[in-house]
């Protein structure tokens, strides 16, 4: 069956601009791990739907999200990807309270002349935020949909159960790729590429090369059977996995007891993984341009029960191995993107690719109703 998406969906800047509004400014989008924001003034920044976002823990220990633009001239309040710093604009020193209201304007009387009423009306724009376990989601919509309408409750419960095991230290990387962001999500849900693209890296670690989908998904015959419920696009798979034992594994509180590879696919753009409940990583695929994307990768161990001095070395080693696997994907997907042509026929999907057709159906619905 031919895909309902054509090359233009992957190459057009106009399509991307509509996606930013219809998907990224409308859906709940993963922002990061809550465990990395536990201290007062700890923050992370992100760019979602073309909007700069800061997620900041207040001195009242309440996590909030704001558009990361100063109410004065629009400079970013926080510049780094992660850090610990109060809400203060680095440009002219305006400061904000936990709720995002302007707290002080250096030299107001001498330079600005704003009266109290004016200052009281100045604030950072708030953004909706929900935590599912230790996973932080934000929603840029002025009237955000309940997160339960985007994800099945059972899936949210599974995310919460797994993510409570996240440690409070992590390694973070961002790297670009020359292909459309949608290709990456389609790639991670396509288990059938693993033995071909990762034949010597990742595939040998999978005791069975085919993940077992939970719940099972029988191949439908037509688009009507595939359906268009957005909640069906996010799901879990569990597969046997061979994780080499290391002495440090005894120093973490492991999620689950078996050597399994857990995938939690979060539509539209996250692959949350746990390797044997010992290593966790979130891969998030963000659009940069129609033919360019960026992967944000956050990796941590299960929560540690004793101090692990070698933690940076452990995570760096795992990250390098993961990057090797991702580079194998990048090589193929960049070639796929380069070869896209608007006069080519849409790609063809077989029975096992019903999820890709389901993704296309939901995507087209969202684009039609939300842009």
């Amino acid at each position, binding site marked *: 069956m031919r895909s309902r998406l054509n090359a233009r969906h992957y190459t057009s800047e106009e399509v991307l601009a509509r996606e930013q509004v219809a998907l990224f400014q409308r859906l709940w989008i993963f922002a990061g791990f809550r465990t990395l924001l536990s201290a007062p003034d700890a923050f992370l920044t992100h760019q979602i739907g073309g909007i700069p976002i800061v997620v900041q823990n207040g001195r009242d220990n309440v996590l909030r999200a704001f558009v990361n633009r100063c109410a004065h001239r629009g400079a970013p309040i926080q510049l780094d990807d992660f850090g610990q710093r109060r809400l203060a604009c680095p440009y002219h020193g305006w400061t904000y309270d936990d709720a995002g209201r302007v707290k002080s304007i250096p030299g107001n009387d001498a330079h600005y002349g704003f009266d109290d009423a004016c200052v009281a009306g100045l604030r950072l724009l708030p953004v909706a935020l929900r935590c599912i376990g230790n996973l932080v989601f934000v929603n840029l919509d002025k009237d955000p949909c309940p997160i339960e309408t985007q994800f099945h409750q059972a899936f949210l419960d599974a995310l919460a159960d797994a993510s409570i095991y996240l440690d409070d230290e992590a*390694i*973070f990387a961002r790297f670009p790729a020359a292909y459309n962001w949608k290709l990456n999500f389609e790639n991670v849900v396509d288990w059938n590429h693993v033995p071909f693209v990762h034949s010597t890296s990742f595939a040998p670690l999978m005791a069975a090369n085919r993940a077992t989908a939970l719940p099972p998904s029988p191949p439908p015959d037509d688009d009507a059977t595939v359906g268009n419920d957005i909640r069906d696009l996010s799901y879990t798979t569990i597969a046997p996995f061979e994780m080499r034992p290391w002495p440090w594994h005894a120093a973490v509180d492991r999620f689950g007891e078996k050597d399994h590879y857990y995938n939690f696919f979060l539509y539209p753009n996250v692959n949350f993984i746990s390797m044997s409940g010992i290593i966790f990583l979130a891969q998030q695929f963000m659009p940069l341009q129609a033919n360019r994307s960026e992967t944000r990768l956050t990796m941590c161990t299960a929560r540690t029960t004793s101090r692990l001095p070698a933690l*940076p070395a452990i995570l760096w080693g795992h990250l390098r191995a993961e990057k090797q696997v991702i580079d194998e994907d990048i090589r193929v997907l960049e070639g796929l993107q380069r070869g896209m042509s608007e006069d080519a026929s849409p790609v063809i999907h077989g029975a096992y690719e019903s999820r890709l057709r389901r993704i296309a159906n939901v995507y087209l619905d969202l684009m039609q109703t939300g842009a």
Partner: protein
Amino acid sequence: MADLIIFGSGALAREAQSIARSTHASSSLILQPLATDEISKSPLDVLAGKDPATTQVFAAIGYAALNFARFDLWAKLRLLGFRCASLVDPGAMVDPTAKILDNVLVAAGVVVGADTVLGTGSIVQANASIQAGSKLGKFIWVGPGAVIGADTTIGSHQVIGSGVVIADGSSIGGHGEISTPGLYQGTLAKGTFVGHGFDRPVRMIERR
């Protein structure tokens, strides 16, 4: 006759053995093969019956796991009561005021300036330069030809790759790796990684 037992299986072990032939000519040299992934389970049988008072050891394990593999072996040897030698190639130029701690290897052609400190377990590869006043923490790897500028501090468990130049007065936080050749200046936070296919630095987000 005193013994010097060098543990390791790779190029570093061979290099250590080569240096020791010159610097420990009066000792009985033993090269004990030991792969990195065998350290935790090896009983180090070769040490059975050896007198720690007359036996020196050297952990010649490379930079695996940010030098923690070498650290693990070093710690094991020290717990057994053995002293770790330091090996300075006769072809290195080391200022007499430099402080070189134990289990340090300084390869041929290395220049070590005045008032420097090479911390325990540090390996400085051929033709690297540690300029005056620089302080290297514990278990550091400085690759061939790398330059550590004057008055620079390098935190423990840092890997500095071949061809990397750290500018004078810089501070490198440790527990990280710089493997992309180039000039690095200023402060690099602990847990920063540059290279290995990442075109921007990778960072540890530490507990706050």
